């Protein structure tokens, strides 16, 4: 076996299947970035496994030239957990959406995150049901008019990042389909983290929810609306003007930088601070606040698969390889 890290190009990760997403779908960009990132992770291709549930995003595995498993609605975390604990050397990537991961599969996602199985979750959030043709999703805003909510949705939406942090996730990130370089960097970071990396990816559905993220992704405004989070860096943003985040009591506050205030007066991002991560997750671009992207939260905690394997190894050390004859003859036996 060669120890040389394999050299791949993006095309090595492109499958020969015709892609069936709608032209203009944000999924194309995400697919392209994932293929590029996988080619650069220095890992043999056969060790990548992409596991998905049901929905537009979940067609993803078919388009990756890796091992892939398109499973059932909402349950990808279960399959991924069973695979990872029995084959911990594999690089497992779960692809899900706002419906798959937070509606039908919310339970499994929460349990995956609390267990901290060492794998990566990409949740494509387009705030709509695409494959079933345009019903509101658990991340759709209140008042959303869709085929199933002609008078507007009355459901309060989930905040995926707050959900993840609340479930005990150890690594929580956000990126956006059209931020190619940022998305690649984010996925690289997800690969590096030991434990479940949860990446929310804002993804535009140009058919049923077009422009859902334009308010902060449009080139004309994005630099004034997006806060790029980096651990240890002051939280500042803006091009036409410079803004920063400060703490006002127990709440975040936006301040304009200028003569009196500079970066040194702003809050420095601490990605190990769960309270801060929760506050940042709550920012949605309203009231002058930015939309944060990047690394919200990252801490180290033992992984589930690591502990799972360790118990098996410990049992073998303590008890030796199982002796079947002894096992069957254990307890009270008698001879006839």
């Amino acid at each position, binding site marked *: 076996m060669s120890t040389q890290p394999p050299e791949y190009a993006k095309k090595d990760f492109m499958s020969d*299947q015709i892609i069936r997403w709608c032209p203009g779908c944000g999924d194309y960009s995400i697919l392209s970035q994932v293929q590029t990132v996988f080619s650069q992770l220095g890992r043999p291709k*056969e060790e990548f496994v992409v596991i998905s549930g049901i929905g537009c995003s979940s067609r993803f595995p078919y388009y990756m030239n890796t091992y892939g*498993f398109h499973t059932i609605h909402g*349950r990808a975390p279960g399959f991924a957990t*069973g*695979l990872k604990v*029995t084959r911990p050397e594999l690089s497992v990537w779960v692809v899900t959406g706002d419906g798959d991961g937070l509606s039908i599969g919310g339970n499994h996602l929460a349990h995956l995150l609390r267990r901290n199985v060492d794998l990566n979750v990409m949740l494509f959030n387009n705030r709509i049901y695409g494959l079933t043709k345009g019903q509101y999703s658990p991340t759709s805003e209140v008042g959303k008019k869709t085929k199933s909510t002609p008078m507007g949705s009355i459901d309060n939406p989930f905040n995926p990042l707050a959900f993840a942090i609340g479930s005990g996730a150890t690594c929580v990130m956000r990126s956006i389909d059209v931020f190619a370089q940022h998305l690649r960097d984010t996925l690289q970071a997800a690969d590096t983290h030991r434990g479940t990396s949860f990446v929310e990816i804002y993804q535009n559905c140009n058919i049923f929810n077009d422009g859902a993220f334009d308010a902060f992704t449009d080139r004309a405004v994005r630099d004034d609306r997006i806060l790029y989070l980096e651990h240890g860096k002051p939280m500042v943003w803006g091009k036409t003007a410079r803004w920063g985040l400060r703490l006002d009591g127990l709440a975040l506050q936006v301040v304009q930088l200028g003569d009196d205030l500079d970066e040194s007066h702003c809050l420095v991002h601490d990605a190990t601070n769960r309270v801060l991560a929760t506050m940042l997750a709550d920012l949605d671009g309203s009231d002058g606040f930015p939309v944060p992207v990047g690394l919200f939260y990252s801490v180290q905690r033992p992984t589930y698969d690591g502990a799972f394997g360790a*118990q098996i190894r410990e049992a073998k050390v*303590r008890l030796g390889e199982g002796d079947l004859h002894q096992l*069957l003859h254990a307890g009270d036996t008698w001879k006839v």
Partner: protein
Amino acid sequence: MNQADTKNLEQVVIRFAGDSGDGMQVVGSQFTRTSALVGNDLATLPDFPAEIRAPAGTREGVSGFQIQLADHQIFTPGDQADALVALNAAALVTNLGAVRPGGIVIVNTDKFAKLDLDKARLSSNPLEDGTLDGYRVIRAPISTMTKDAVEPLGLKTKEADRCKNFYCLGVVYWLYGRPLDATEAWVRRKFKSPYLEANLAALHAGHAWAETSELFQNHYAIPSASLPSGDYRNITGNMGIALGLAAAAVKSGATVFYGSYPITPASDILHNLAPFKHFGVATFQAEDEIAAVCAAIGASYGGAIGVTGTSGPGLALKAEAVGLALTAELPLVIVDVQRAGPSTGLPTKTEQSDLMQAMYGRNGESPVAVIAASRPNDTFEVALEAVRLSVKYRTPVILLSDGYIANGAEPWTLPDIHAIPRIPIDYAKAEEAETFQPYARDPETLARPWAVPGTPGLEHRIGGLEKQDRTGNVSYDPANHQKMCELRAEKILRMRADIPPTQVHGSADGTLLIGWGSTFGAIRTVTDQLLADGHRIAHVHLRHLNPLPGDLGDVLSRYERVLVPELNLGQLVRLLRDLYLVDARPISKIQGQPFFTSELRARVVAAMA
């Protein structure tokens, strides 16, 4: 000294009943172990409520345990009890109907005060109102005598009272001539001082009281049964399945991954397997039934043997995932320890009503293999068989057990582990990359390659969408869909090659009793009785339910009458009528209880008239 004579019995049925906190299951299992060690054949039936401890003294809180032991081979825990031990008023009135007229009733007279009668919803005292007329009643202040026996040990009143189950055990051990040593050793292992000494004191006091009280006219001996020679142990169905799965890990060299969510009466399989990690068994308690089966499929995808265990309600939840496993064509064993349904039903009571769910309970044309255990002592073999078929044919296999098999116990001849065939695991290899197609098939079994992630050059995608034959690519082609549906159905039928010819017990013509699952004991006993009476009758008991044995149609055609006793409203009988156009008739019982041999016999005789 008691001058009681010793009488030999060929068989005896004993029933213990008390509060669910009284330790009746412990008494039952100790009596079982001891009887097995002295060489009797036996069968047991625990009978307990779903509630952990319903209010003490109420009818709802009564927990029971029945055992039949014999000096010859037996197949059931018996119909009516020859002796009942009742620890309180509620236990007496709820179990007295299970005692034969003239049977022995040992009753704890300390639990018949006004308050006890009220809790048992009794307006008069059954010790005084004639309820017990016609029984041989042994009135024993068991609570008081237990308290006296353990008094020197300084236990609190409540703790002292909890030793009364061992006091009862001592009484019954004397009555049926059982040695105390196995239980003494168990108590020493299980308890710490002062409970160890207290339980032993209660056991010995009960034994001594029975010997000296002169209340018993006789005591009894049940000689050893002449069973086939070999090493034996007692086995419950849930333990047999766990041991079978551990053996499957050893014999295949692959990890057995057991994903499960606690559910009565299947949870003990998870408990039993969890300490078997050093055998290559991995256990996973999932967040729900669905995650449990999905994790098992994920493990199979990674090259392990994925197994999930549940009961009927859980099987319903797993249905969609089982469908995925069958179209992804991955090995998967689903153990369904059936209980009385529908819905939550009677969680601790037995039933055979999931056969149709196992056969058909999925969307689409979704055939899976279905096999069934018939008694505690075949569960080991059946678990191995489920794994073997699942791995060989790369398809889900549903293994049906039930509450009666799961919790019942009987002696099991320990197999020679060297005689258990290896389970070959043939993953697709990197060398096959050039010609690899994920949905190419073995010409004999129709199994597709098991290409596990991590194998260079075999990267491929699978999923729940219909796949093109051979390439496995997503395909909406109409003709391809028909072909794939037919291939999946055909694959199950090909398993007939692995199914031995149908074994017929009894006459070659006349009436055929055909059953599956835990009715084995009752049907076999009735068949033997009627054969002895000169009837032309035979018994076939099916282990393989899908596919059915290839020769079954021929066997059925030889009998003028086919009767199908089942603990449901007629499920196997429908399959037989459907597949063989045979005028099979159901004998149904659906009461959460097994057939009594007497009732089954009466119904068979009526059907033959």
